[in-house]
């Protein structure tokens, strides 16, 4: 039993470390490239909505950045998940090991990357003279945990289903793009018309992203969204696990 836990821990850390190493080994540019992406988005949205359309949000740059970085983590992990089992075909066909750890390691690699991009967010927070609150110390781990649980459930489901329907990845890309515009990231949730307000509660990502932004801008949580986000995370994990369990016995056949 003790060895089993030890083994899971080693498996998870070794695979995650491998991905992080590979990502950063070739260049420090690997780091710069992936913070360049959300920063470029922030720039585009700033021009479009602040300069051109004159959106009424104060500190709009940091408003964008505090949502775009966690979003980038989510969408990277989800989009990458379609290829995970597919890319490890000859391993899955031969070795009987806990393959449910594979999507988790990709996700943790992206989580690590998000963590090391927090200094960039901090830099903007300082530039905008927003006070950094102590609540970050527990706020960041709590939100990260919720996001990991939620994304893991989705990644398990997508990576499993994609083995049987190989065009799933295209659908996933369309879906994450749609979801991005339905989530209050480049607009505040208060701008959503009254009659659609309640729909926010149905969007698990909105619960998370609103809280990320509140944390970075004000050092606060919206506890209602926090619990809702946690609830969605558990649902996602449950469904993802059930789909994985149902399909995984056939992985070696279909690969």
């Amino acid at each position, binding site marked *: 039993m003790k*060895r089993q836990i*030890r*083994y899971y821990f*080693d*498996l998870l850390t*070794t*695979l995650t470390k*491998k991905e992080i*190493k*590979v990502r950063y*080994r*070739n260049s420090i540019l690997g780091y710069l490239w992936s913070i360049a992406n959300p920063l470029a988005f922030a720039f585009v949205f700033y021009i479009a909505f602040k300069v051109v359309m004159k959106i009424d949000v104060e500190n709009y740059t940091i408003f964008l950045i505090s949502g775009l970085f966690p979003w980038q983590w989510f969408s990277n992990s989800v989009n990458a998940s379609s290829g995970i089992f597919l890319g490890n075909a*000859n*391993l*899955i*066909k*031969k*070795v*009987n*090991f806990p393959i449910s750890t594979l999507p988790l390691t990709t996700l943790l690699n992206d989580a690590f990357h998000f963590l090391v991009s927090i200094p960039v967010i901090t830099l903007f927070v300082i530039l905008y003279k927003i006070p950094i609150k102590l609540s970050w110390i527990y706020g960041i781990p709590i939100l990260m945990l919720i996001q990991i649980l939620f994304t893991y459930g989705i990644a398990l489901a997508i990576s499993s289903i994609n083995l*049987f*329907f*190989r*065009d*799933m990845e295209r*659908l996933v890309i369309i879906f994450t793009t749609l979801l991005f515009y339905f989530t209050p990231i480049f607009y505040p949730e208060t701008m959503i018309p009254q009659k659609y307000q309640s729909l926010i509660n149905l969007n698990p990502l909105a619960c998370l992203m609103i809280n990320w932004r509140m944390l970075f801008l004000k050092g606060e949580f919206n506890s209602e969204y926090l619990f809702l986000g946690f609830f969605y995370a558990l649902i996602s994990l449950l469904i993802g696990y059930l789909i994985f369990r149902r399909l995984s*016995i056939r*992985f*070696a*056949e*279909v690969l």
Partner: protein
Amino acid sequence: MSDSVIIFERVSKTYPLYSHIARGIKTFLINLPKAIHDMRNSKFQALKDITFEVKKGESFGIIGKNGAGKSTILGLIAQVIKPTTGKVTVKGKVFPLLELGAGFHPELSGRENIVLNGILLGFTKKEIMDKIEEIIEFSELGDFIDQPVRTYSSGMLARLGFSIISTVEPEILLIDEILAVGDAHFQKKCTNRMIDFRKRGVTIVFVSHNMDAVRQICDRVMWLQNHELKMIGSPDEVVEKYLIQQA
């Protein structure tokens, strides 16, 4: 029998043909009634009513043409595939000798890949670190061990893979046509190590098209033909009949 570590009892395996769904959701939905009908009815029989046992410490060969079901048997032993009917019992930890480069990451060094591979095979990090020097020594890779494995030749990759599996004291070893790579010196070393395994009581399941290797390594051989068990017996007897039929 109590000393059997692998027991197949009337094992059959059918696969649904996944082709129609692997074409994607779009095609699946457009041809929905036909696709569902196909999924229910199209079957591919990979194994028919196979019964055999492998005893502890035995070297068991499997021969047969491509597509006869040899790899399916290895998949069943490794327990990555479940039988459709019948029962597969495996006692002890199974180690598949992976094909070239599987479970290796090209950007990582040989040393890092030993750890990665060992973990995937079910060892804890400490268990691997205890053995790592021995593995490196057996592989004869020298200074290359700290180079990324993308710079390795296929022979060097094979050496690394075989060194890992052969150093970790396997209980049941699955070998799928792997010894064909590497130079003559290393092939000889592998064959010797396999003979060494036999002495130490490691159970080996060996799939090969190389009849000389089968004769040299195996205690018993099973011949699969058209997904069925054709015959099982001593290597000389089975290989001879097999070669006559092939000719």
